[in-house]
């Protein structure tokens, strides 16, 4: 089956992102295709490229990146939710006259329409919230 996940909790503050990653790994282990992880609400914070958790804690950004690299999962971050919270790629930073960027590939800023699209076109959408 084709799966999509919606992640609405930030890293570390609550379990949502941890639960989503554990579920994601179980989905692909069962032979399903995890096509999309969509980040909304505080979930967009999972894409912060500067996250520096202690060495003895899981690095969530790296774990999400591995889903993309190993399974082709698209990591889509709601652009409106991201901009408000300071998650900008190079292009958006330039557009807003800011130096630097806080989000980079394989995470990508996309419109909320992609969430609706994933929800209707994939076989399953599972949500993890704070």
């Amino acid at each position: 089956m084709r799966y999509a996940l919606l992640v609405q909790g930030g890293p570390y503050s609550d379990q949502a992102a941890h639960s989503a990653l554990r579920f994601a790994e179980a989905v692909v282990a069962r032979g399903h295709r995890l096509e999309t992880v969509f980040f909304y609400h505080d979930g967009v914070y999972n894409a912060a490229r500067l996250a520096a958790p202690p060495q003895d804690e899981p690095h969530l950004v790296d774990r999400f990146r591995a889903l993309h690299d190993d399974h082709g999962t698209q990591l889509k971050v709601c652009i409106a939710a991201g901009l408000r919270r300071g998650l900008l790629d190079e292009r958006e930073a330039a557009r807003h006259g800011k130096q630097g960027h806080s989000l980079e590939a394989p995470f990508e800023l996309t419109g909320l329409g992609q969430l609706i699209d994933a929800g209707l076109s994939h076989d399953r959408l599972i949500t993890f919230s704070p």
Partner: protein
Amino acid sequence: MQDDTTKASSQVLVILRHGPHGSSWLREGLDAALVAAAFGREVTLLFYGEGVTALVEGQGAGPLGQKGTQPTLEMLAMYDIETLLVDQQALDERGLAASDLLLPVTPLAPSQLAATLAEHELVLNF
């Protein structure tokens, strides 16, 4: 358990469970509904639990002057979002009546909830 107030052809159900100003859930849920409608989907809104307080008439600005979600609610018809279901029990619990609300809504009894969820292709819960 089919129910006349919602059509089987409705595709997206957005459940709104939070009031205005206290968090961004209401706003982000409404944004999802508007986008789905703009993409040509049929959208049903369900104001559930504390979500019914989103509809109270006479809302004002937030702590720093932000305008809140009332203007967005007033745009729903423009997006052809016309099925607004409201949790009747939650209204009763708060002593609110349909006349206290800023939009015309369809009351939903607890017994109709499960069928409403079942008949929509996609359910987003905010």
